[in-house]
């Protein structure tokens, strides 16, 4: 068998790299992560030769280790040594793109350039002497149009050829003092490395690249010796070593392009610039942004078209929930399994446990797909980068970056993709803070909780739902301000620097593929966690011990020899309920676990096992909170969930009654505290899983979850205690602690904050 060749695809962000990768590999792609980091890794087999693997490197400007992407890309190139590099270069932005090329040619790996967007250059009346450029750079150039697909397969073939028997020798050189130092460095440190890599390493040592110095383990005395050379060059050229190299590369490129790149028009505003005049205008930017966001939200998650709104997403989600989720998955599977004569407990596990849980998440898929489609569209046409820029001003005030906005917007649909969207934020501090606060936004699954509380205790008032969003936003702002004053998040968000790609008509292939990729990873992430946790919760609610005998509680309760009158009395005592209300579920493992835990919620006004159990099961999926209320309050009805949706009033009354009993007559307040806690506390397991993946650290995951739970508890505590005091039922101890908590919160919010601490990148 022929040796399998590996080609790396490298290029600047926004150079058409993704489009080219899709054109070259078609559907032969595998998406994963680069080892140890949450940067996406894509690989695929070339269409022109299935034996060649193309690795899509992250979009980078340079091989300096500024962003995670750059570190990943350069580690791959240096350590894995692919057989060739296919370097996509945007011809409309030649200088900046060739800056990366000059670095790639130093790696000792054959480089082939795919010169993209030449059609646009010609359209503008400019011309590039490609032959001469190829000669000056020392590597082959293939003109392509990634969008139209012109020449892309030729570029792939050229790269394969180069991989088999090509060689690229860097043609550019630096100024005298630098070359002198480089020669010295090569002589004393890198002479035992592979010859073709020596130059790259020497340049990095000259730049005092920490990572390379560490990797090569350069001895102290040698370092000191080299340092003299570097300092001599720095003194002569009056700049620091890194800047000297960067500068000379750019100078070399612009010198080279003088004879090669003939520019016709000059100084005119491009169409993209004209659009920016309006879209990022100081007056119009925000209104335009609000309209765009409203449209995105209204189309994906707003009022269904069936109810007179414009949302296709909600329409499809309703349909999925009613038809697939309810009728097909739960009822259909139950009927089918029963007709097969499957044991009742297994039917319960599969239909009520797994399929009902999966169905609940499945319901969100249409909304999510519509949302992803919109976001992909905004991203592909170039507006997304502007959003980050416009929002940065506002977000910076509370310690977040403009790039945090998108995760939060997505988070109003579902926290899982919201957390996942945080990976576009380069700065680790900003990313962590975004991950921690994104799930404060009320996601789609939390809205039924809001609906239940509003319906049961507030007569269906709409301000409850509105207040839920305000609570979410306020929680983000307050957390941002408080956290940025802690040692962990000290300093300001990284200064905002971001390239704004030119606007263009979206490439549908990219948009659809991007939508599907995000949607699929959402389904996978949510699906696996939900299946496992649904089984656990089903087990906890179905099993328990009755009068010393362990088994399914429903079955055990049919055995009258176990459920004696005396036993019922003890259960009623334990659960603090009247004897005639004792039911099998009171003996379930969940009730046993929830009862002692409910003490935690006593200071919040809802310290009873039912709201506690609902809150705990909310960890599986927030829909479970409402589903559980349905089951727990609809004793006489076998199908609690159905009942809640079709004849809500009956249960609403019971819920209201129960909250009133638990809270000693302040049902509304207790229910509101319950809602606040459930909105702000740890998200569902699937979202916690996403947090863990994106944090990439157990410590940070626990910190995030812990912070969310404590914050939720404290806010609900303050609301309940102060609210009760206003209502005239003061609990002295509670009030004192609530005021103290409030004072602490305000102190942390308004205490002056030392700007002096600077963020250090580790």
């Amino acid at each position: 068998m022929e040796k399998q060749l590996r080609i790396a695809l490298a290029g600047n962000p926004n150079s058409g790299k993704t489009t080219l990768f899709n054109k070259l590999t078609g559907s032969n792609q595998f998406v994963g992560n680069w080892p140890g980091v949450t940067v996406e890794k894509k690989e695929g087999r070339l269409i022109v030769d299935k034996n060649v693997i193309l690795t899509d490197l992250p979009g980078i400007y340079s091989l300096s280790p500024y962003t995670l992407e750059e570190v990943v890309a350069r580690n791959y190139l240096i350590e894995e040594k692919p057989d060739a590099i296919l370097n996509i270069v945007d011809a409309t932005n030649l200088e900046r793109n060739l800056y990366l090329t000059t670095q790639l040619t130093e790696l000792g790996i054959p480089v082939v350039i795919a010169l993209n967007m030449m059609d646009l250059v010609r359209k503008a009346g400019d011309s590039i002497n490609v032959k001469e450029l190829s000669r000056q750079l020392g590597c082959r150039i293939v003109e392509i149009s990634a969008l139209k697909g012109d020449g892309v397969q030729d570029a792939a073939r050229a790269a394969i050829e180069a991989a088999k028997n090509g060689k690229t020798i860097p043609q550019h050189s630096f100024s005298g003092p630098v070359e002198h130092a480089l020669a010295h460095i090569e002589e004393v440190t890198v002479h035992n490395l592979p010859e073709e890599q020596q130059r790259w390493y020497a340049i990095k040592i000259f730049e005092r690249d920490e990572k390379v110095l560490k990797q090569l383990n350069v001895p102290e005395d040698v370092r000191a010796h080299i340092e003299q050379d570097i300092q001599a060059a720095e003194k002569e050229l009056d700049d620091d070593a890194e800047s000297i190299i960067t500068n000379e590369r750019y100078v070399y490129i612009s010198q080279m392009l003088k004879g090669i790149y003939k520019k016709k028009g000059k100084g005119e505003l491009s169409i993209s610039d004209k659009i920016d005049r309006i879209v990022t205008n100081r007056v119009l930017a925000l209104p335009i942004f609000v309209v765009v966001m409203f449209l995105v939200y209204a189309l994906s998650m707003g009022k269904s078209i069936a109810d007179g709104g414009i949302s296709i997403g909600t329409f499809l989600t309703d349909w999925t929930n009613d038809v697939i989720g309810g009728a097909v998955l739960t009822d259909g599977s139950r009927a089918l399994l029963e007709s097969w004569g499957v044991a009742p407990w297994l039917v319960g596990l599969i239909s009520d446990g797994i399929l009902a849980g999966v169905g609940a998440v499945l319901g969100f898929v249409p909304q999510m797909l519509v949302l992803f489609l919109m976001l992909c569209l905004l991203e592909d046409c170039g507006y997304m980068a502007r959003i980050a820029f416009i929002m940065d001003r506002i977000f910076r005030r509370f310690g977040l970056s403009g790039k945090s906005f998108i995760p939060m917007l997505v988070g109003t649909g579902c926290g899982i993709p919201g957390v996942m969207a945080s990976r576009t934020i380069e700065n680790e501090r900003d990313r962590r803070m975004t991950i921690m606060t994104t799930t404060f936004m009320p996601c789609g699954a939390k809205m039924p909780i809001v609906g239940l509380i509003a319906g049961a205790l507030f007569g269906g008032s709409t301000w409850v739902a509105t207040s839920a969003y305000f609570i979410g936003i306020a929680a983000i702002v307050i957390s941002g301000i408080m956290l940025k004053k802690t040692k962990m998040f000290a300093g300001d968000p990284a200064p905002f620097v971001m390239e704004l790609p030119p606007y263009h008509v979206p490439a549908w292939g990219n948009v659809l593929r991007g939508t599907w990729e995000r949607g699929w990873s959402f389904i996978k992430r949510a699906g696996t966690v939900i299946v496992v946790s649904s089984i656990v919760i089903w087990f906890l609610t179905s099993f328990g011990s009755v009068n010393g005998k362990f088994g399914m509680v429903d079955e055990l309760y049919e055995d009258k020899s176990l459920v004696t009158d005396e036993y019922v009395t003890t259960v009623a005592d334990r659960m603090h309920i009247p004897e005639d209300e004792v039911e099998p579920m009171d003996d379930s493992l969940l009730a046993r676990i929830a009862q002692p835990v409910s003490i935690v919620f006593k200071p919040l006004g809802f310290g009873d096992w039912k709201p506690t159990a609902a809150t705990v099961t909310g960890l599986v999926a927030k829909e479970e909170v409402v589903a559980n209320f349905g089951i727990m309050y609809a004793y006489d009805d076998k199908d609690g969930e159905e009942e809640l949706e079709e004849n809500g009033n009956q249960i609403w009354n019971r819920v209201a009654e129960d909250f009133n009993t638990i809270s000693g007559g302040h049902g509304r307040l207790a229910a509101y505290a319950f809602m606040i806690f459930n909105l702000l506390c740890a998200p569902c397991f699937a979202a916690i899983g996403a947090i863990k993946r994106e944090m990439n650290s157990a410590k940070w995951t626990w910190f995030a979850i812990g912070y969310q739970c404590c914050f939720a508890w404290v806010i609900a505590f303050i609301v309940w205690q102060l609210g009760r005091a206003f209502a005239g039922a003061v609990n002295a101890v509670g009030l004192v602690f609530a005021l103290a908590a409030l004072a602490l919160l305000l102190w942390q919010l308004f205490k002056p904050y030392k700007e002096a601490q600077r963020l250090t990148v580790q």
Partner: protein
Amino acid sequence: MMPLIMADPGEENIVRRVGGSPEMKKHLEDLGFTAGSNVTVMNTIGGNLIVKVRESRIAISKEMAAKIMV
């Protein structure tokens, strides 16, 4: 020499010096903000800038723009 935030929109200037933390400086230089390169402020919004450097449009915050001398 003046910081980039004081430059008039639409007017072409030449970058003299880039300040800031070493990482930031390197990143800006990678993006094309090297001494001697042409830079034009295209748009301002609340002190933050969109600038044209080489052929790219780069959005930079006020704090960063204050450290680029033209």
